[in-house]
């Protein structure tokens, strides 16, 4: 990576920090958002500059397609449907980190036939897990707010033990993946479990608590981007990812407080509500 690109990443990181800071106040919020968008543009252009000509056409095609979809829905959506839209976009971001991690994994194991070093393989597993949970969790949050599925908490007996069992199986599959990277069954198990866990953790939460959940999932997608940064050894991904991850948690807490709820209470949503209803 040339020094110019590294400097561009540094400038982008500074703009993200300033942007978030300015978004704390009503007066400067809009300008803050623009500064952070400028940071993103700088990061993208800097990355594009190191891309080889062979893949340029596909890359521009993907960017044009993504921009068209993003612009269309962002302008079309009604103001009252904003939280749903944010949930959906956030889910896409999580899925993108998830796909980048898998892309890297398959390239290294199946094409280069190399054994991936410990830090990288752990980062891939973390990125797949958080990205997968963010994706399906955000989609469930979107469907709940949009009224496609009932906004009331969906609970069933043994939900928490099931989540625990799935999480433990994930850890087991992750351990085996670290030991034996050549077996695709293991990575498929990791993918499936993380996608299921995303659904299971959000369905028991009631529709009224969804904004808090979306804020938490937003924090997760930052962490997924951060893990992707560790896979690719990329500073700007780590800075932006951990900024969003950390500030997202604080914002989630503030939102909980504004609703007079505790975060634990929201996360065990179905649980808490059935108690208060009784």
């Amino acid at each position, binding site marked *: 990576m040339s020094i110019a690109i590294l400097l561009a990443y540094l400038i982008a990181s500074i703009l993200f920090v300033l942007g*978030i800071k300015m978004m704390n106040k009503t007066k400067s*919020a809009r300008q803050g958002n623009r500064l952070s*968008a400028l940071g993103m543009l700088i990061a993208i252009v800097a990355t594009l500059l190191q891309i080889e000509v062979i893949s340029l056409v596909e890359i521009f095609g993907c960017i044009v397609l*993504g921009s068209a979809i993003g612009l269309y829905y962002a302008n079309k959506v009604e103001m009252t449907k904003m939280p749903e839209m944010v949930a959906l976009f956030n889910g896409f971001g999580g899925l993108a980190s998830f*796909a*980048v991690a898998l892309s890297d994994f398959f390239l290294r194991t199946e094409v280069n036939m190399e054994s991936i070093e410990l830090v990288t393989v752990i980062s891939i597993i973390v990125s797949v897990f958080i990205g997968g949970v963010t994706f399906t969790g955000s989609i469930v949050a979107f469907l709940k707010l949009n009224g496609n599925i009932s906004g009331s908490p969906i609970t069933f007996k043994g939900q928490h033990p099931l989540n625990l069992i799935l999480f433990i199986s994930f850890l087991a599959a992750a351990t085996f993946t670290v030991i034996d990277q050549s077996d695709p069954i293991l990575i498929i198990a990791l993918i499936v479990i993380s996608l299921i866990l995303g659904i299971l953790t959000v369905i028991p939460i009631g529709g009224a608590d969804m904004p808090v959940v979306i804020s938490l999932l937003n924090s997760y997608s930052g962490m997924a981007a951060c893990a992707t940064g560790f896979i690719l050894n990329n500073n700007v*991904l780590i800075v932006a990812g951990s900024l969003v991850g950390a500030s997202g948690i604080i914002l989630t807490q503030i939102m909980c407080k504004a609703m007079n709820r505790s975060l634990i209470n929201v996360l065990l949503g179905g649980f808490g509500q059935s108690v208060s209803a009784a």
Partner: protein
Amino acid sequence: MSSEALIILIYILVLASFLGFELIAKVPPTLHTPLMSGSNAISGITIVGALLACNEMGYSTLSKWLGMIALVLATINVVGGYTVTDRMLKMFKKK
């Protein structure tokens, strides 16, 4: 990755996380959703990863496709995220 390089990455992670904790102060409740939406757009930074995945490492069919899917999704996240946030904040100014 050498352990020195790893330590530097961990430094970045830890310091940026502390900064993230400190950046959010007394946010007025009306700004909760725009702030969430704005930081969601920033988490679309994974677009940088997607660009790299499409390119230097994407010479196998499967990884290339995954990279391209990631690029489309991350672009939707970034472009849609910033646009939606701007629309929300534009409404604020009128009030």
